[in-house]
């Protein structure tokens, strides 16, 4: 997805939430350009929707992105490409990570991913069993063992850091962001299930009460799970409010 895609919403926030849900990515992984803030209009009449342009970071970053922190992963392997090669070059840049990847590509990442996780855990002093589900996309590395709670951390903070570093290291090697998922003692799958069912329960309540409900603050990945779990429901919509660590998902009745 190298072309920017336009999303709209009743405000910028809603438009970004829509983009996150549709693309299945956190805003931290997307380049977002606000085209129009939108306006409310008077008494709900004559309002303009907010418009944003969203680019998947697999595209080369635009030249005007300020160094040293271009919001794309291209930073990791080819910073000079930002200036010298604003256009994608078929021979040099990897294709965008399409949702469906070939088994060859997935398999290529799986083994190094497993090795990197194993090396990190050993150095950290964990005695754990590491295995990889290479037939799945995204590639998932499972860590099993005793006393791994500290590796998950509060609300999965440590696990998020571990997963992020593994992807940073792999992206250095493969010149593409591999989206490898790391799970410890089934934490992620359990968390995903409980968040989805929480979302559905709250959505049912929102439909009955016809009132928006704001969930507690959650990290980006958890919010994404809720957005995705409810994206197909016709009776409610979801968006996020607040900034940083206090960002919360709102589930609201759809008009």
């Amino acid at each position, binding site marked *: 997805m190298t072309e920017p895609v336009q999303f709209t919403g009743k405000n910028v926030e809603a438009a970004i939430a829509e983009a996150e849900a549709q693309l299945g990515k956190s805003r931290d992984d997307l380049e977002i350009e606000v085209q129009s803030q939108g306006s409310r209009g008077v008494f709900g009449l004559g309002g303009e929707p907010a418009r944003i342009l969203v680019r998947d970071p697999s595209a080369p970053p635009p030249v005007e992105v300020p160094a*040293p922190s271009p919001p794309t992963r291209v930073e*990791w392997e080819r910073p000079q490409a930002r200036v010298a090669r604003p256009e994608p070059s078929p021979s040099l840049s990897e294709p965008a990570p399409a949702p469906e990847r070939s088994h060859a590509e997935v398999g290529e990442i799986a083994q190094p991913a497993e090795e990197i996780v194993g090396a990190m855990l050993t150095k950290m*002093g964990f005695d754990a069993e590491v295995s990889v589900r290479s037939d799945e996309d995204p590639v998932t590395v499972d860590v099993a063992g005793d006393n791994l709670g500290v590796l998950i951390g509060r609300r999965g903070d440590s696990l998020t850091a571990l997963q992020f570093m593994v992807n940073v290291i792999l992206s250095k090697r493969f010149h593409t962001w591999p989206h490898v998922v790391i799970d410890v003692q089934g934490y992620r799958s359990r968390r995903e299930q409980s968040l989805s069912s929480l979302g559905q329960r709250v959505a049912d309540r929102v439909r009955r009460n016809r009132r928006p409900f704001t969930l507690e603050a959650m990290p980006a990945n958890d919010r994404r799970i809720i957005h995705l779990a409810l994206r197909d429901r016709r009776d409610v919509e979801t968006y996020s409010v607040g900034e940083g660590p206090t960002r919360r998902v709102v589930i609201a009745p759809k008009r």
Partner: protein
Amino acid sequence: MTSQDDEDAVEGNIVGLVEYLAKSVVDHPDEVRVESTQDDEYTIYQLHVAEEDVGKIIGRRGRVAKAMRTLLKVAAIKNHEHAILEIE
């Protein structure tokens, strides 16, 4: 769980962790150096990288440095020490 006896080995471990992470991320792995110094309460891990690699270690919005600090903290908790990461 770690016993008192092998805390030296454990410290080497964390140096190894920081070294491994840094070397995997930078363009000049041969210029990565990690030193640890111990004061009363904390072990301070000083990470040196080539000047042009500092941005890589920090990452956009400081995410790489933050993730490395989190992992260092996890390793420190696991090995019963208080650790600080300094990036130079």
